[in-house]
């Protein structure tokens, strides 16, 4: 009797252990944790969009997928995140087109002189159409997928400086400006007479506060307000709408292949929701950002319309050279230019 009891107990123990292991395995197979890395600090539009994306992915996937966000470059810096996505070491990210252009130069197309003075709507119209889809497709060859549309951040302005006041393009001569790591920005600022230094976003505060640079080149009002860069010494803005910057959602192809079709759909739908929010938010935030910068003592200067036209004409005359030096595809750029002309 006792022997039978022991046997039954052992069998029950084995069965329950097997059941627990099986359940754990099933749960492990169902629950997926994805890692999302961004290099901007919490509160930045990109981080807020990432948080919404993460929350919506969890909601749409009914908890099958959870997303852990690593802000402020805790996990990877700008270029590091892109390489990690391509290798499969990172699952998700939201990246600026300027950073991505070190890997796919054509993503800088909206920073070309033809986009000087362009509106948010014109940029959106182009990137939401087949030209945008073609651009995203170029990233796929590198193992990085774009599961949705972009959101425009803000127009680039040529300079934000610490001590030297830039009132006109002539004042740029000799200024050492930290620019986003885009070959095109470096080439354009060189053409304008400045001395650009391509710098990852995570290093700009240090460079400004230590006086290693005179300011920032090809930046946006939102970058200044979001990063509180007046604390790092930024005092003057030279605002001239010198092209645009945008953000893209990115998924590693290795991660994408691990997901079921329903889970992929959750990721896509979730971004659609985050994208709509981010587009509205950044448009509204631009006005707030300018106000915030003014209230923190930043003085705005702008070129006269005539001067702006002259610089635009000068740069446009050199656009083919800029395209070649920026290793962009001239045929693609020509099609974008034609579409922009239609919209104008």
């Amino acid at each position: 009797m006792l022997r039978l009891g022991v046997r039954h107990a052992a069998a029950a123990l084995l069965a329950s252990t097997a059941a627990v292991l099986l359940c754990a395995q099933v749960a492990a197979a169902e629950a997926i944790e994805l890692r999302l890395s961004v290099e901007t600090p919490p509160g930045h539009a990109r981080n807020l969009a990432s948080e919404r994306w993460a929350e919506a992915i969890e909601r749409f996937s009914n908890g099958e997928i959870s997303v852990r966000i690593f802000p402020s470059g805790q996990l990877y810096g700008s270029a590091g995140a892109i390489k990690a996505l391509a290798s499969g070491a990172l699952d998700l990210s939201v990246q600026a087109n300027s950073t991505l252009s070190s890997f796919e130069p054509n993503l800088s197309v909206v920073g070309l002189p033809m986009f000087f003075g362009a509106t948010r709507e014109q940029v959106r119209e182009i990137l939401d159409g087949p030209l945008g889809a073609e651009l995203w497709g170029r990233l796929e060859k590198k193992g990085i997928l774009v599961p949705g549309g972009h959101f425009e951040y803000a127009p680039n302005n040529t300079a934000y400086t610490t001590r030297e006041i830039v009132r006109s393009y002539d004042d740029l001569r000799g200024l050492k400006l930290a620019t986003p790591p885009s070959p095109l920005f470096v080439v354009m600022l060189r053409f304008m007479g400045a001395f650009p230094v391509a710098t990852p976003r995570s290093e700009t505060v240090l460079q400004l506060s230590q006086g290693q640079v005179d300011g920032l080149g090809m930046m946006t009002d939102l970058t200044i307000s979001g990063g509180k860069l007046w604390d790092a010494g930024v005092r003057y803005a030279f605002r001239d709408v010198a092209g645009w910057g945008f953000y893209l959602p990115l998924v590693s192809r290795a991660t994408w292949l691990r997901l079921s079709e329903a889970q992929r759909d959750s990721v896509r739908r979730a971004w659609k929701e985050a994208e709509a929010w981010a587009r509205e938010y950044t448009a509204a935030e631009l006005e707030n950002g300018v106000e915030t910068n003014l209230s923190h003592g930043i003085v705005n200067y702008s070129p006269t319309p005539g001067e702006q036209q002259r610089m635009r004409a000068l740069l446009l005359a050199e656009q083919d050279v800029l395209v070649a030096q920026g290793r962009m595809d001239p045929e693609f750029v020509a099609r974008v230019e034609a579409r922009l002309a239609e919209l104008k």
Partner: protein
Amino acid sequence: MTKPDRFEALGRSWRRFETAVIGLIVLLALGVFLYGSATRSFAPALAVDWTEEVTIYLIVWASLLSGGTLTADREHVSAEILVHVLSERARRRLRIGIDVLMLAFCGLMLWLGVEGVLFAHLLDERSASTLQAPQAWVLYLALPVGMLLIVGRLALSLLLERRSTHA
């Protein structure tokens, strides 16, 4: 000339060549850096935006290439506090054991370095300056080349050790 002599002569020539190359690279780095600083301050028209970037490449190459020479001269970091209490025979065994471990580690790093170079080449990662230098060849290649030199020196050292035992 006996065979061991030939190996020792090869080791000496190799070291002299490496030291000369590393010295030249460091001098070049210094020159490029000074050129960048001087032109930015005194002749902005002649300034280029890539001097700091090139200086970094040169320093990285010089540092990684010096691994081979350091290994040959046994000047790399090592803990030697207890070594003096060992017998000559035990010291020799320990030396060989450490060389074998280093050979395995550097071999692994060599393999991973090659993988890294190929991956960066696949991504076509470029620097963001006007130079737009392909990172695979100007930067990441330094790691496998440096590791290859260390592996070569360790293999030569083990070979000489073996020959001296049989001599």
